[in-house]
């Protein structure tokens, strides 16, 4: 069984957010529910202001703190390395959202920032959050693995496109979006990334391209001090754009003051 992991080359990433868009549409996400977000950071002053960005999927940690805190076992580490949520076990306690150091979990039962509320425009019958006309075909939806239009009152997150990756034949080192044979098993964000900044492959296979990239281009993990050991690696290349902080801390001598 492969242990899928992702490598994101920040030197190539253009911050266009196509990954975010592809993910939202592939996975029937609500506006603003960004399983795959691109975070922007800006500091410094004219004429030397700095703008950087960081694409941020779920890290699918080796040691996921979200899974550890889940009181019901709804959050789990799947056999192929993905961290998933069983929407049929989740009780919506949101503890995993508290415990994820990367802020990649979402709870749809909140006031929608993008108004009018799209859930009222495409209302669902029954237990689902909404019913978008472009939703994933029924036979692909898979609530046990947190795939598809979600039921109400449960937590959702990136699945590494489990409905795609889990269909991959065994023995593949990498899922290459440019190879017609493996494209359909590759996560949506990797498939669409125009500059080719994303790679997806088996971290347990020392011959995989992702392993080579991590070795050659010195892949690094976000907040590795948490001990969660992400399965998403960043390549910073000549452009070290991994954010110094996770948030917004401003210098004391901010020119804004």
């Amino acid at each position, binding site marked *: 069984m492969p242990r899928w992991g992702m490598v994101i080359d920040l030197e190539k990433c253009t911050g266009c957010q196509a990954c975010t868009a592809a993910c939202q549409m592939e996975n029937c996400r609500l506006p603003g529910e960004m399983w795959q977000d691109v*975070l922007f950071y800006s500091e410094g002053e004219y004429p030397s202001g700095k703008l950087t960005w960081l694409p941020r999927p779920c890290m699918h940690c080796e040691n996921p703190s979200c899974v550890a805190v889940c009181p019901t076992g709804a959050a789990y580490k799947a056999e192929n390395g993905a961290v998933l949520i069983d929407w049929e076990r989740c009780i919506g306690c949101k503890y995993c959202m508290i415990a994820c150091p990367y802020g990649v979990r979402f709870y749809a039962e909140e006031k929608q920032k993008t108004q009018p509320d799209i859930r009222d425009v495409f209302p669902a019958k029954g237990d689902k959050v909404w019913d978008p006309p472009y939703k994933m075909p029924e036979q692909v939806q898979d609530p046990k693995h947190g795939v598809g239009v979600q039921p109400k009152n449960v937590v959702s997150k990136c699945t590494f496109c489990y409905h795609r990756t889990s269909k991959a034949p065994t023995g593949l080192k990498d899922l290459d979006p440019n190879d017609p044979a493996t494209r359909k098993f590759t996560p949506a964000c990797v498939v669409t990334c125009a500059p080719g900044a994303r790679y997806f492959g088996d971290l347990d296979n020392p011959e995989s391209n992702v392993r080579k990239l991590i070795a050659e281009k010195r892949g690094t993990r976000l907040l590795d001090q948490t001990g969660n050991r992400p399965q998403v690696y960043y390549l910073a290349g000549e452009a070290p754009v991994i954010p110094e902080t996770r948030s917004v801390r401003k210098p004391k001598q901010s020119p804004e003051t």
Partner: protein
Amino acid sequence: MTSATYSDALARYADFRKTPAGMDLALMVVGALTGAVGLAYVFYNLMEQGHAAFNTSSDMAWGAPIAFYLFFLLTSSGLSIVASLDSVFGLHVFYPVAKRAVFLSLICLIAGFSILALEIGRPFRMLWSLPFSFQVRSPMWWMGVLYSIDLVLLFVKFYLIHVGDWHSRLSHFVAKLSFVVCILAPGTLGLVFGMMAMRPAWYSNIMPMYFILTGFATAVSFLLFFTSLLPRDKTTAPNVDHLYHEILPRLFFVVLLAVMGMRAGQVITGLWSNYEGMEANWLELSSPFFWIEIIAGLLIPTALMVSDRIRRAPMIQFVAASLFNIGIFCARLEFLIIGQKVPLFKGYWAGYVEYWPSMTEWMLIPAGCGVFLLLYGAGNWLLRLSETEFVENGRS
């Protein structure tokens, strides 16, 4: 048996033939009214909007309802500890409030669980999916297990006291077990937050201690609050009088000092630390909840409790206990906010997470307090909460 005999049998357990009057009636009426309004509002909005009726969000996942939950659960454990002080430490002085404490503990726990049921996404699913998951690494799982045991023990304990069994081996065993559970349960609740290294403003190995202590403090203030409402006259037994006028206020003063000490440690550490996420402690300084906690919840009550003479007055006790409870509720809320205030990887544009409870969340206060008062009034009316162990046993 005839219906009369059923009625007689029931009367041994509850004084339903007595007409409720005075403070009991007032508490029940006020409780029923505010509770009905609050619950109607909350239920209507939850039906209409689901949990979007709360201002909690994916960034501020836990808000005011969890603050209530913490408030009631920690108070419940504190009350249960008070009630067990006799069995565990031989502190007979608390006998006169023991039964009341157990009852209050029970309704606090029920109130806490009820609010949790309104807060979590799928409360009914929790009933089956939590207990048998054996998620031993999850502090929340342990919390669920321990509080469930706590609930059972409280029922047993209250039943035993209510039928007059204060001193059987079983009674003492239950009391001791309850004491242990009531240390472990709030301690585990402390761990739910204290173990979260990714939330530095919470991350602390003394969080269980803080939770146990503040829970005990609110328990004492609850007792003070409710006993201050009881009629006091010359007929009041001396040991009861001593407890109400001397022991409880003095104890309250001591726990206030202890809470202030711990809080000072937290605030100073928080403000001093450069570690990312800890800046929430600075942001806290501009939060009204923080200042209500510090001024109304800690400084004023402490000032009122300093003097032996002043703190004897039921009115003062009532005011101090009320302020402290409001303060601690604000503290619980602020505690939740500072842990989540600094977002986890939301980018420069996200800013700090803003949160202010929605009307539905605020209406949980009348809903919860109303039902709580109704239950307490009813208990006081029906369940002889002032009962203490029989003096003729010669042990008091």
